[in-house]
């Protein structure tokens, strides 16, 4: 059953905080939920579907449903890392198309900044119940170390350079200067990036995303309800989600799950990469943007370095305006998860509610895509294609 045109995103809210020591994670979820409902012109009592991931207090939909006193007909706690919320839009659209719920709420929140979590630079402590753990944890695999290795392989296989990767951060910073809530608003140059400290060679500090507290929420609903509201109509055209495994040790670390979710989402939407006016592509590290541009079909494999170095990601001058909120590299990475902010900025663009300096003209079709957990090992990927009606 296709979800094409069967569900609309009518509410989107990015919590303005980037540092919230005086709020609980539950409160950030709740504030984000209310923000998205207000944006939609709906109320909490209208919600009958709830979607959340592992960042939610208690680890399942139960506690936030209790906290908000939701009256649910459908729920989904699919946890696939940072792209969970992109995948939740597809899952919400499926539930709505199947008649299981009519107003779906998706929330994310977390506060790694104020709790001082060394997100990318200390090994994650994972319990023995995860079957990979006995075989990877002993080697102290920091997230930056793994992405350093992936970057090194892409450079080795395709001749990608540090300067090309830096151009991605430059584009993000160019956009972030217009976002009053962005954590980093300063415009940086290629030189600034390649002369920033090495975190895990060849990754520089400015190749890495920010660490922020925050949250976000989305409201997905039926065509009938969407058309009864006063918001611009943004419909779900196509979507796909997958797990890309390490294939029993025969890994391909320069490929992301986008190699599957991109073509599948484009096929469902009936469009091609050339039709995309704006792209939100999850940028936990510059290399991830580069690899996804290739795997989604915007560039041939190995050619994205040239594409980004020519400034093509910058709105107004480039061929593919990208992450016009400043993305994870400059704006926000709440709960160390960039999926929901990718969808939110795509909706701003489709509604023509982005900052005027970065608003894409005639933005009728947009993409949001991202990975979950760590590429190189088994990881998730989700792609979503949205259209303005």
């Amino acid at each position, binding site marked *: 059953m296709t979800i094409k045109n069967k569900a609309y995103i009518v509410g989107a809210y990015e919590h303005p905080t980037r540092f919230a020591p005086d709020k609980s994670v539950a409160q950030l979820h709740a504030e984000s939920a209310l923000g998205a409902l207000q944006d939609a012109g709906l109320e909490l009592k209208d919600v009958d579907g709830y979607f959340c991931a592992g960042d939610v207090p208690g680890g399942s939909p139960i506690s936030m449903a209790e906290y908000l006193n939701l009256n649910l007909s459908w729920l989904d706690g699919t946890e696939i890392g940072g792209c969970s919320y992109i995948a939740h839009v597809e899952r919400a659209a499926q539930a709505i198309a199947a008649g299981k719920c009519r107003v779906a709420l998706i929330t994310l929140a977390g506060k790694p900044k104020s709790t001082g979590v060394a997100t990318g630079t200390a090994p994650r402590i994972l319990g*023995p119940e995860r079957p990979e753990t*006995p075989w990877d944890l002993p080697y102290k695999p920091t997230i930056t170390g793994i992405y350093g290795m992936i970057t090194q392989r892409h450079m080795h296989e395709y001749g990608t350079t540090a300067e090309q990767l830096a151009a991605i951060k430059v584009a993000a910073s160019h956009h972030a200067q217009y976002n009053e809530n962005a954590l980093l608003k300063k415009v940086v140059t290629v030189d600034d990036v390649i002369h920033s400290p090495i975190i895990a060679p060849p990754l520089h500090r400015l190749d890495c995303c920010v660490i922020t507290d925050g949250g976000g929420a989305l409201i997905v609903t039926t065509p009938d309800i969407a058309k009864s509201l006063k918001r611009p109509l943004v419909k779900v055209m196509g979507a796909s989600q997958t797990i890309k495994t390490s294939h*029993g040790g025969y890994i391909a670390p320069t490929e992301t799950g986008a190699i599957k979710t991109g073509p599948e989402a484009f096929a469902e939407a009936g469009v091609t990469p050339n039709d995309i006016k704006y792209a939100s592509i999850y940028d936990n590290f510059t290399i991830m943007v580069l690899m996804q541009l290739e795997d989604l079909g915007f560039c041939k494999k190995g050619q994205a370095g040239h594409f980004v170095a020519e400034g093509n990601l910058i709105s107004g001058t480039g061929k593919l305006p990208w992450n016009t909120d400043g993305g994870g590299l400059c704006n926000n990475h709440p709960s160390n998860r960039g999926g929901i902010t990718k969808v939110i900025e795509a909706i701003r663009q489709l509604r023509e509610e982005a900052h005027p300096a970065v608003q894409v003209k005639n933005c009728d079709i947009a993409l949001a895509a991202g990975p979950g957990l760590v590429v190189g090992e088994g990881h998730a990927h989700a792609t979503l294609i949205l259209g303005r009606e």
Partner: protein
Amino acid sequence: MDNLDNKTLDFLSDAYANAYPETRPFWEAAEKDELLLKTCHDCGKPHWYPRMVCPLCGSANTAWLNASGQGSLYAFSHIEKANPPYTLAYVQLHEGPIIMSNIIDADINQLKIGSPVTVAFQRMKEGRKMPVFRLSE
């Protein structure tokens, strides 16, 4: 650093080994500084990490294989700020699979993608020994 020289593997005290009783032959071989891989009698390919069902073809007809302990450096990065600093790597084993590991006793400036490496074994604080690699002589 804990002194691990006199420690031996105790399955019950190493939660990571204890949680996977089916991988016990691997840890017992590692005690003797021998690297085992799981291979498949149906598709003929060894895989990593060791599983009882072949992840490449779905067969349950798997068996332990004595690996050569030789491989080449597939990718690496260096965690300079850790105490002590260490080198994270993907090593491609001669038998095929690419495994995460650490490179020991090497200056990162000596390392290149493709450099030949040889297995060594290092005791973890939980008890079991893990394969790490150093540049081949």
